[in-house]
């Protein structure tokens, strides 16, 4: 069921409010469940309010993605590992993510959107952003992975040697 006339006000973790169409929020399992739990009559109550644990800047990106994908089929198709591909990100989604390259901290934005997609249960967005991150580290060396993920090595040399030994069992 789709309720195109019903609008939903989302209250962000930093106190902002955004009102969007139910046509967009239908892709969010979290928001749909919250509305269902309110047990409101969709025809009688034109506006519902839902608090989301996502900041305003990130929610704007999520809404931008939802607007582009408002007509996507639901439920989101589950794929086996054989069917999964990391190189099938739609062109619009690629451009959407690449826009963040101009931001001061692109990696933090990606993490924030992944986190928001998980919290709001938006499977299509979560899958796309996870693929994007996977593509960044695919085939990279350990040092390159640390640089991309912005990590510092906190292992001792002995611990690294032990993990390398364990990995070698799997690589033979």
């Amino acid at each position: 069921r789709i309720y195109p006339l019903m609008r939903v006000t989302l209250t962000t973790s930093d106190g902002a409010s955004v009102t969007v169409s139910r046509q967009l929020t239908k892709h969010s399992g979290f928001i749909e469940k919250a509305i269902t739990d309110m047990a409101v009559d969709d025809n009688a109550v034109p506006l519902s309010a839902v608090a989301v644990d996502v900041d305003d800047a990130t929610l704007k990106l999520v809404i931008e993605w939802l607007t582009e994908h408002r007509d996507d089929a639901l439920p989101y198709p589950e794929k086996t590992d054989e069917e999964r591909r990391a190189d099938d990100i739609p062109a619009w989604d690629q451009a959407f993510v690449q826009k963040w390259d101009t931001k001061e901290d692109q990696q933090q934005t990606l993490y924030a959107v992944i986190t928001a997609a998980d919290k709001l249960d938006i499977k299509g967005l979560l899958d796309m952003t996870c693929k994007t991150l996977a593509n960044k580290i695919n085939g990279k060396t350990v040092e390159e992975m640390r640089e991309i993920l912005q990590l510092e090595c906190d292992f001792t040399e002995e611990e690294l040697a032990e993990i390398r030994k364990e990995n070698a069992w799997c690589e033979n």
Partner: protein
Amino acid sequence: MFISIMSRALLPQDTGCLSDESFRWILIPEIFTNILRHLKRKDRLNLRLCSREVEEAVAQSDLYIDGYPGLSILYLSRRSRVFKVHFGLKSKRETLRLKKHFEDADMEEVARVRERIFSRIYTNYVDIRNIDYNVVSVTLVERILNVSSRNKK
């Protein structure tokens, strides 16, 4: 889903890294598993070397090999006296393989290393061959597998 509640309890603890809250969130098993599903076996192993947090996240993640029919996930070769554990189709390059010379003391190590590479495995089939249960205990085999199987055979 089981991991939905459990995973947040398994959120990696603060180990003094520079990682922020957003990065820690992507390390919870349900998200990190999603990322790992798009990576090659070698990348999963390399990630273990990045940091303590990431190594722990790999250990807590699940391994999905349910897309390949007819796979063999545990195989013991007697002739070569090498204990082999295949997670995935034996002939497929992306299969995770644990290979260890067959010595009693090493069997515990095989189970321990497996537990650092993934938490649970999802597969359509479990194929166990050539296991001498007088030598390799059922408990150890169960520990190595930790399988959620839909069509056990």
